[in-house]
């Protein structure tokens, strides 16, 4: 049976956190599993997930997204906007987005990379819809993933935002 092993976690305590980077990710697991609870400090609806800090993944991703509005379908983004992000300007206090991301075979240097990302937030403010998102990301990039960045679009993460990264053993 597969076991989850904690690799690292970060809880935002400062109000000026523009991004969170997990670097030197060990290559000893079968799959990476990332659990996030996130909120923006301002008017921002989505956060980016960057692999190996490169922007050259755009146009190589295939997206499948289920959301409450058709405009959330995106054929191309500089980086995948993997999950909705609770927005401090429009949602009630202390509402955080939930996110769950799987990256199988992340340490392989020969296999194409895939990400399965699920997220959602309730509607407790002036947003007209609650939002859910399922991103299935396929890339033709094969290099091993050793770094992952999370970054709100043009804003900071709110205090209390947490990302935890686990390794899933085969």
């Amino acid at each position: 049976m597969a076991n989850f092993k904690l690799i690292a976690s970060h809880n935002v305590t400062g109000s000026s956190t523009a991004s969170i980077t997990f670097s030197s990710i060990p290559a000893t697991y079968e799959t990476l599993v990332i659990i996030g609870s996130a909120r923006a400090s301002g008017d921002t609806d989505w956060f980016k997930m960057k692999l190996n800090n490169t922007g050259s993944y755009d146009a190589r991703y295939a997206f499948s997204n289920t959301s409450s509005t058709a405009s959330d379908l995106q054929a191309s983004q500089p980086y995948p906007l993997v999950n909705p992000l609770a927005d401090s300007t429009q949602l009630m206090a202390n509402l955080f987005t939930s996110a769950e991301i799987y990256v199988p075979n992340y340490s392989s240097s020969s296999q194409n990379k895939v990400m399965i990302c699920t997220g959602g937030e309730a509607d407790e403010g002036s947003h007209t819809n609650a939002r859910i998102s399922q991103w299935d990301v396929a890339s033709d990039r094969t290099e091993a993933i050793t770094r992952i960045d999370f970054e709100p679009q043009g804003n900071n993460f709110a205090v209390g935002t947490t990302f935890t990264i686990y390794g899933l053993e085969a």
Partner: protein
Amino acid sequence: MERPTRVVVDCSTGITTLVELSDEEMAQRKIDEIASTQRREAQEAETQAKAAAKASAAVAVTLAQVVDSLVVQESQ
């Protein structure tokens, strides 16, 4: 104003460091902020358009029902 920072968690050592954003990162952040605003405005416009279309369709159905009702009454 305090310059935003990037939190870097080194998974091999467990050490967390804070790095101030570079000028280049600050510029990208500004671009992202504009993109986020545009995205929100597009979503809101789409939602309003859908609501207006729905309301318009409801009015059309009601009018059609009234016309049908009048036609029936007249034929009787």
